[in-house]
């Protein structure tokens, strides 16, 4: 069965190829069958292979499969090979299953769209590339997947291409991530120069022998890889593309911009954790970036009007948590949070999509309200997702995953108080904006007509995800509550266990209590501001208009980059449009023509003038003769 590993990414590609070539000729009914079916098959394959892999005796640490030799040139050798271990299994699992659910959702959600086949083709392509990304056995192949998902993200953000705005958002997303990717590519160059290979396992093996902890080269490489991760995962300072990426259809936001692609940065850091561990500065940077991002995005989320933008900022913020976890060396916690986040954020996006579809594609939360009655299933599932996001204690999966991060950011050897504080504030804000969203959308008076009620496919996906976002947390329960460590144990062959500062284990419950209080406090605050005294939040908003618009615009990062990069680039490009290098050549031409005119003037047609020419020649010759 393991021989068929290549089929996991292969099947979605096959689906994509069928959809591309079949295109509009394919019967409309068949489109979702192919699209969702291929991913579903892939998910099944994952189950079987995962099962086999885990039950194999003796327990295999990893499994490699070389499909073919990709590039081999004078010592540069890279294979098209897959690598299976527990880390990738988690990701594959999330990708295929959440992916399948989102496909299922899309089958209904996009049913009336003209580009139905195109949508599924892109989506399948994305799943394929994403799987390659997480299954790649070397960094170059991973880069292939990395760029591939970027491409699909671009295509899907700009899926409704008729609107210029969407195209702009798509380009923005792509180019900004490209900046990060470029840094990563440079990292690959250095890695190759250092190790002579790009094979991840090989690098993991050699790195500790080659570098001591804190080696500058390791730091450099780690920072460059971090660059890629930051771009792809929309972290500071390359986070600005994600809110705009919401221009894509909601399933896209769910799959790409919440569950999978944006967490690729988390994956790559986890994957190359050996390097990061050798580079404490880089690792610390990861934590700081995570902390800052989660705050910045959280504050921005507080002010948004657009339902999906709230979710987008929230995604940035949550990935910030994951980065924070990585930064403090809580590797498995990051992965755990990734998984849970994939569930509830996909759920939220899908729910939001259903809401938006129901109200004539209205995105503004302030124009919604009272949808609780009209869309009960959506409401309930959305509420579950929101609770999970807000990490309401005990019943939600989000609580368990986030709590672990909070705890470790304080307790880990690499953690510190500031990071912890940031995480704590972030948790509070998260609850506030989450329930602001819930209250504004589903409570209050009815402002819009509901025209479209979700059908079976959407409901199934929502329900399944809602279940996952609830029970998903119970696989990892903190010491203070019963100590289940399924994820950490599961990942332990690949990711080291976090070392805790000695002697503080007992204080874990304090942290948990604080977190629980904060999240409930946030809920109450939101309730007070948006349900009880709805006028109050307007007052607050009006009292701090500058801060509000500052947050609304995502801390003005867009304007900053506009001024720093975009405008100068466009300006320089435009002034150069006519290629100044033509200047010298035109100058030569002009000079030649000038001399031509002068010389033509000497050809006056007058005989005596010609004779004078000869005489001058004679004088010159004699002068030269005398002079030399």
């Amino acid at each position, binding site marked *: 069965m393991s021989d068929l590993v290549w089929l996991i990414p292969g099947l979605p590609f096959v689906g994509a190829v069928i959809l591309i070539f079949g295109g509009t000729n394919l019967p409309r009914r068949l489109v979702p069958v192919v699209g969702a079916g291929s991913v579903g098959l892939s998910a099944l394959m994952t189950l079987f292979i995962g099962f086999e892999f885990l039950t194999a005796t003796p327990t295999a640490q990893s499994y490699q499969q070389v499909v073919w030799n990709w590039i081999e040139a004078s010592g540069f050798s890279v294979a098209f090979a897959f690598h299976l271990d527990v880390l990738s299994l988690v990701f594959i699992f999330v990708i295929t299953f959440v992916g399948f659910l989102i496909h299922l959702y899309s089958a209904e959600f996009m049913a009336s769209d003209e580009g139905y086949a195109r949508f599924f083709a892109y989506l399948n392509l994305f799943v394929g590339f994403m799987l390659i990304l997480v299954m790649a056995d070397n960094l170059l192949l991973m880069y292939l997947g990395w760029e591939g998902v970027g491409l699909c993200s671009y295509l899907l953000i700009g899926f409704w291409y008729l609107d210029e705005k969407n195209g702009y958002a798509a380009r923005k997303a792509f180019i900004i991530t490209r900046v990060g990717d470029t840094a990563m590519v440079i990292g690959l160059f250095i890695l190759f120069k250092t190790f002579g290979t790009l094979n991840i396992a090989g690098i993991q093996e050699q790195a500790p022998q080659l570098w001591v902890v804190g080696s500058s080269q390791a730091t450099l490489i780690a920072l460059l890889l971090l660059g890629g991760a930051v771009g792809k995962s929309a972290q500071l300072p390359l986070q600005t593309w994600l809110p705009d990426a919401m221009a894509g259809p909601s399933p896209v936001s769910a799959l790409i911009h919440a569950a999978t692609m944006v967490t690729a940065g988390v994956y790559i850091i986890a994957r190359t954790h050996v390097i990061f561990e050798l580079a404490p500065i880089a690792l610390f940077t990861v934590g700081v970036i995570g902390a800052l991002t989660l705050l910045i995005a959280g504050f921005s989320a507080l002010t948004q009007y657009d339902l999906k933008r709230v979710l987008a900022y929230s995604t940035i913020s949550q990935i910030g948590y994951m980065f924070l976890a990585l930064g403090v060396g809580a590797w498995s916690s990051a992965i755990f949070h990734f998984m849970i986040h994939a569930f509830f954020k996909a759920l939220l996006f899908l729910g939001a999509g259903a809401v938006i579809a129901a109200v004539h594609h209205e995105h503004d939360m302030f124009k919604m309200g009272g949808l609780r009655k009209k869309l009960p299933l959506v409401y309930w599932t959305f509420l579950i997702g929101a609770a999970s996001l807000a990490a309401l204690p005990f019943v939600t999966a989000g609580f368990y995953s986030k709590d672990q991060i909070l705890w470790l950011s304080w307790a880990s050897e690499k953690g510190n108080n500031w990071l912890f504080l940031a995480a704590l504030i972030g948790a509070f804000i998260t609850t506030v904006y989450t329930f602001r969203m819930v209250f504004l959308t589903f409570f209050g008076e009815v402002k819009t007509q509901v025209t479209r009620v979700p059908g079976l496919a959407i409901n199934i996906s929502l329900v399944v995800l809602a279940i996952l976002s609830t029970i998903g947390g119970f696989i990892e329960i903190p010491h203070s509550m019963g100590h289940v460590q399924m994820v950490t144990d599961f990942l332990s062959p690949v990711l080291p266990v976090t070392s805790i500062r000695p002697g503080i284990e007992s204080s874990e419950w304090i942290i948990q209590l604080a977190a629980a209080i904060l999240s409930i406090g946030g809920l109450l605050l939101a309730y007070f501001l948006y349900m009880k005294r709805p006028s109050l939040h307007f007052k607050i908003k009006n009292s701090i208009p500058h801060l509000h618009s500052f947050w609304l615009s995502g801390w003005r990062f867009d304007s900053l980059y506009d001024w720093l990069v975009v405008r100068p680039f466009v300006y320089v490009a435009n002034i150069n449009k006519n290629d100044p290098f033509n200047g010298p050549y035109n100058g030569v031409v002009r000079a030649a023509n000038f001399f031509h005119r002068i010389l033509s003037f000497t050809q006056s047609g007058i005989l005596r003038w010609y004779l*004078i020419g000869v*005489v*001058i020649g004679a004088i010159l010759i*004699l002068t030269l*003769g*005398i002079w030399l």
Partner: protein
Amino acid sequence: MAIIFYMASAIAVIATVMVITRHNLVHALLYLVVSFLAVAIVFYVLGAPFIAVLEIIIYAGAIVVLLIFVIMMLNLRQESVAQEKQWFSGKIIIGPLILASILLVEMLYILTSGEPAGLSENMIEAKAVGMSLYGPYVLGVELSGILLMSGIVGAYHLGRQKKKVTHRFLEKKEE
């Protein structure tokens, strides 16, 4: 002998200056004859009596006559003199004069730079010239015949509409 050379040279130069400053073509031609005659004397002094004679016959005689023929034929009258005066204005002369004087100075410098040499006082008689002409240079003589032939044919073709003045004259010279 030398004094004759100097005098003849002076006359030649002065006559030539007169030639180039006259407005009237016929006057100029008369000065030209004087110049040629003076040059003929110079030739004689330099020991080339045969050439001196040829100079008089052909340059001072034939060529000048030919020119006068044409002038008569074209019937150039008083207005041409006036025209010539007008063309021969001061401004136009300066440039060429400067150039020519530069050239002259350079030539004089070069000519006097060489080692001084005397001229032989021996006459080279017509016979010697003839021996040379029909000895080593006989093919040259034949080529000059061809040269004249091309002159005739050309002049004949170009001047055909006219009374064949030029033609007849040249035929005579061909003999």
